[in-house]
């Protein structure tokens, strides 16, 4: 009977080689227990994904993609770090891919580039009274989980692309070059998107904080 290892290559029947491969296969089997992966890391990866994508369907999709990719490239897992860190690395890549795809399906819309609503500035370009920052909001006094909850809630109110670039830039600390490259937008468009995201977020977060 021809034995095949995970790569599908036929294993030689000579004993010494077989023994070597046997150990290799045993090692692989330890890693190759997908059901255990899903139980052990599924929630962890899902939570990370939802903190970036803010959508449960999208998050389930990237988690699924992550496990599939992991299975495909299991030979590249060298046990250098933990399994979880390895999976998280794949997930981060899948999240960027997902954001890129969702950004591709929509060209830069009016929503993203049209003039700011006059809720922020008057005709002369001065701050509208309601938009003025009245005092320094001590967001730092918030519990961490309240801070994230407010931030997520406010990101949710932004047009998707603006929220996405904000997440990549501020939460993932990606360089503007990488973001422009991935999303295929010019630097000046990116600056406009980030500016809008920040303007609306700052106001939304302060409103939420005051109601907190």
């Amino acid at each position, binding site marked *: 009977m021809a034995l095949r290892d995970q790569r599908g290559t036929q294993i030689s029947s000579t004993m010494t080689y077989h023994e070597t491969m046997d150990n290799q296969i045993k090692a692989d089997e330890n890693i190759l227990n997908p059901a255990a992966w899903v*139980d052990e890391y599924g929630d962890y990866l*899902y939570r990370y994904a939802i903190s970036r994508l803010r959508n449960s369907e999208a998050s389930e999709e990237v988690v699924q993609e992550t496990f*599939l990719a992991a299975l495909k490239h299991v030979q590249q897992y060298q046990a250098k770090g933990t399994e979880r860190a390895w999976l998280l690395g794949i997930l981060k890549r899948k999240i960027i891919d997902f954001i890129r795809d969702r950004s591709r399906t929509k060209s830069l819309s009016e929503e993203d580039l049209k003039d700011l609503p006059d809720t922020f500035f008057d005709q002369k370009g001065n701050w509208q009274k309601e938009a003025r920052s009245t005092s320094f909001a001590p967001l730092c006094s918030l519990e961490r989980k309240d801070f994230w909850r407010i931030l997520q809630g406010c990101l949710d109110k932004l047009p998707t692309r603006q929220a996405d670039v904000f997440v990549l830039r*501020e939460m993932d600390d990606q360089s*503007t070059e990488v973001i422009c490259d991935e999303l295929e937008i010019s630097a000046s468009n990116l*600056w406009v998107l980030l500016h809008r995201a920040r303007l609306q977020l700052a106001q939304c977060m302060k409103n939420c904080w005051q109601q907190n």
Partner: protein
Amino acid sequence: MRTCKEVSKLVSESLDHELSLWQRLGLWIHLSMCKFCRRYRKDLLHIHHEIQQRALAIEEDIINSEEKLSDNSRERIKSLLESQQ
């Protein structure tokens, strides 16, 4: 003199790239005279700083989170993985 609208954009851009000398000059002159734009800048820096700080503890936040992969997708992913093996 630049307007608050223009300056709010420069404040944001200063977080993403180096401003030209001309832009910096316009920004600082305006900020020295406009408390609303000063506060806005402070807000943005503050949000930026908080995210950086709190992101360091992301592990803990993820572990304590109550979000869960739904049973449906858990089972779907498992059987997908099994069929790929």
